[in-house]
């Protein structure tokens, strides 16, 4: 006989005036290779059709299904029930605005973030359709992609002590994004310009170094390395601007 799994799931529908935040309990029999994706869909189709949660690719690629699984932010699609105890508690990610039950609004948060950090290549060059592409070393291309792998699931933000205390903290995901453009030779921004974006307590100097962001990142991105890289770079930029040397007045 397979295990009986007891799910405790956070419930609240802000659009229903009668709804109050509470936990609901559902029991399912475990099947082979069961993931939370399978379990939650079965609960919705067999037990409570109003249950809200987000999945899209269900393959660990898109980052839709971030939630707090037995106390830890993670992707529900690649969380196997056999790795969990028979009692499973699911809560929505904190920090992001709640849509309902386990569903949160990460889209608005991330859109605001990438507008703040101007998450695009800043270049004065015009594209010429008749010309050969601009060359790049393959090592550089691969290094950029390593940082580009973030899926914006929001787990790092939800696990971040600073982000929980202050709304305006950019978080590891934004700093990783900035680092991606710093190493991209196509982006013409200077260190001083990056400093304007992240050289403050909302950015690189707000991090308390608790390391949870990297612990929970489902893509295993080297978030702490990027924080250290940027902090060093921004620290040097700050010192340079104190002495306002000529060479750094680009």
């Amino acid at each position, binding site marked *: 006989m397979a295990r009986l799994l007891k799910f405790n799931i956070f419930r609240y*529908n*802000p*659009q*229903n005036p009668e709804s109050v935040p509470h936990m609901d309990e559902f029991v399912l029999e475990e*099947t*082979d290779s069961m993931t939370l*994706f*399978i379990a939650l869909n079965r609960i*919705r189709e067999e037990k409570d*059709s*109003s*249950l*809200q949660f*987000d999945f*899209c*690719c*269900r*393959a*660990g*690629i*898109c*980052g*839709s299904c971030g939630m707090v699984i037995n106390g830890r932010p993670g992707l529900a*699609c*690649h969380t*196997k029930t056999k*790795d969990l105890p028979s009692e499973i508690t699911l809560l929505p990610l904190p920090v992001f605005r709640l*849509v*309902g039950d386990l569903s949160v*609004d*990460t*889209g*608005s948060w*991330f*859109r605001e973030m*990438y*507008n703040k950090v*101007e*998450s*695009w*290549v800043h270049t004065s*060059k015009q*594209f010429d*359709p008749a*010309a*050969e*592409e*601009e*060359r*790049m*070393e*393959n090592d550089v*291309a*691969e290094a950029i*992609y390593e940082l*580009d*792998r973030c*899926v*914006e699931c929001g787990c790092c933000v939800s696990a971040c002590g600073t982000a929980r205390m202050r709304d305006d903290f950019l978080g590891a995901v934004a700093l990783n994004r900035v680092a991606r453009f710093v190493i*991209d030779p196509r982006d013409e921004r200077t260190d001083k310009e990056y400093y304007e974006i992240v050289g403050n307590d909302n950015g690189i100097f707000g991090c308390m170094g608790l390391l949870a962001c990297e612990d929970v990142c489902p893509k295993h991105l080297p978030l702490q390395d990027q924080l250290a890289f940027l902090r060093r770079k921004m620290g040097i930029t700050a010192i340079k601007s104190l002495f306002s040397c000529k060479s750094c007045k680009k």
Partner: protein
Amino acid sequence: MQTIYTDVLVIGAGLAGERAAIEAGQAGLSAICLSLVPARRSHSSAAQGGMQAALGNSAMGEGDSPDVHFEDTVKGSDWGCDQEVARLFADSAPIEMRRLAHWGVPWNRVVPGKSKYFKGGKEFEKVEKDENRGLITARAFGGTAKWRTCYVSDGTGHSVLFTVDNRCAQLGVEVHDKTEAIALIHDAGVCYGAVVRCLKTGELRVYLSKATMIATGGFGRIYPNTTNAVVCDGGGHIAAINTGAVPMGNMEAVQFHPTGIVPTDILVTEGCRGDGGTLLDVNEERFMHIYEPEKAELASRDVVSRWMTHHIREGKGVKSPYGDHLWLDIRHLGEKHITGKLREVYEICTSFLGVDPIHQLIPVRPTQHYSMGGVRTNKDGAAYGLKGLFSAGEAACWDMHGFNRLGGNSLAETVVAGGIVGRKIVEYVKGAEVSFNSSVIDAAVAAQRQRISDLTGGAKGKENVYAVRAAMQDSLNRGANIFRNDADLKTCVAELQEVLGRARKVGLASDGLGANPELAAALKIEGQVKMALMVAYGALQRTESRGSHNREDYTARNDRDWLKRTLAYWKNPGDDLPTLEYEPASSVLDLPPGYRGYGKMDIIPMEGQEAEKPAEGASGKKSAEKGDK
């Protein structure tokens, strides 16, 4: 109720939609993309392999050109494609890849010198030229004469989507995420925008636009087993079908992939078999060599999928709570190979199945993968039947894929077609004057409110939406799968007609308040069954085998009678069958129909055309061997 005006409304914010919106933004027009999910979660992000474009920078791509790419694409389509479109695509793809590089895509680049590569399990060596150092490189893909697939490690779709979305943010193109278009607003043959449900609050909104575009990807979720994301449910198609005026093209052309994992149908790459992996049955015995003595597991996607399904039907499948499946065995490749060359496969198996492929078998089954059919458009991306309506990407039947799509051509199509159609939309909007008739808008909104209140109140019945959906998927899966025949398709059509009756009587079990997911499912179930009927009924009528459409009772490709495209309309909402019409597959035949160069097949030639020798019997086999070299 909120009404939002924009020059260009794009339904869908994946690569095709955002790429088109960029053209609008660059031209100084306002553009809004609607998306079920945050834009960067679109299914485009899941594409790993790459994008075909004849840049010819890599050693194995030398001598490549848009002409060769065009020929591969037409052959791949089994001559079902529009050759003008295939030409346009092949010519534009290299420019588009360079443009993406300019915007920030970190394409893998040519590294000069010697390197090794594997083919058919054997090792070979190639030498990259010094003068090409740093140019965009390419990898090999099936069905192509040259290495032509540009890539970003194993995350091409992800990387390109992030870059394109960045460009949208830079240009001020808005993305309204967690919104769903539930109906198009149209009058007297002109499209004016859409009625949209907010998936955060459940409220209805009206979006009015000079041009509207459907870029919602595929509709694989009408099948029970698919590699498609859960958002690939055909919402955009349904909005078009429900106008009664817009036809779907070639809905019977559905591509299946041999190795989706069980239970969740996530894809494991063809590379497993390419590198020497084998398929096993319930007795852990190989079977592909019985059916295909020469190529065994390495026959083409459609062929392997067919034999796997056949073998399961013979009772040799492995029983599981999720249905019968077979095994993929890569254990003999060894730990180094599996965690190196097949890293992605290793991670999928361990993360999603808890299976260690170094020591354990991988449960797999053929799975729905790609929809060649969709909203029929002309070569400008303008939909048939409604002025001001456009479509691109997998949602569209622009028709460069015909009856079989080559790997690497779909992801490239999203951005190439998005760019071309985007520019056509800009032309259209700049020449268009639109006046919105408020009574038409009010009527469109009232109709949707009525539908919602009927569903929440159970006015039409109390059928459970998930049960109806399962019945539809099951029926389609049995009748219009990899193998098709007259009897099964007739049963399928009859069953789907009954399911359609049930879909019209769905009532909600829950309250339907807010972002209620049951209501979202209920609003599209009737349209999904109509799409399923377009697939099954179109397949029933097409009495030939072409590309992915394989009739057991009509095994030849019949160019004499079927070198044409199916157009499926749903003319009246109350109909219980689509209306089918036909048009020539291509107005130009630069490459006359012939033998594809792989797979055994019989061809009934066009009138006035000699049957090609290699297409028949034993000589066909010979040619297939030649083609493989």
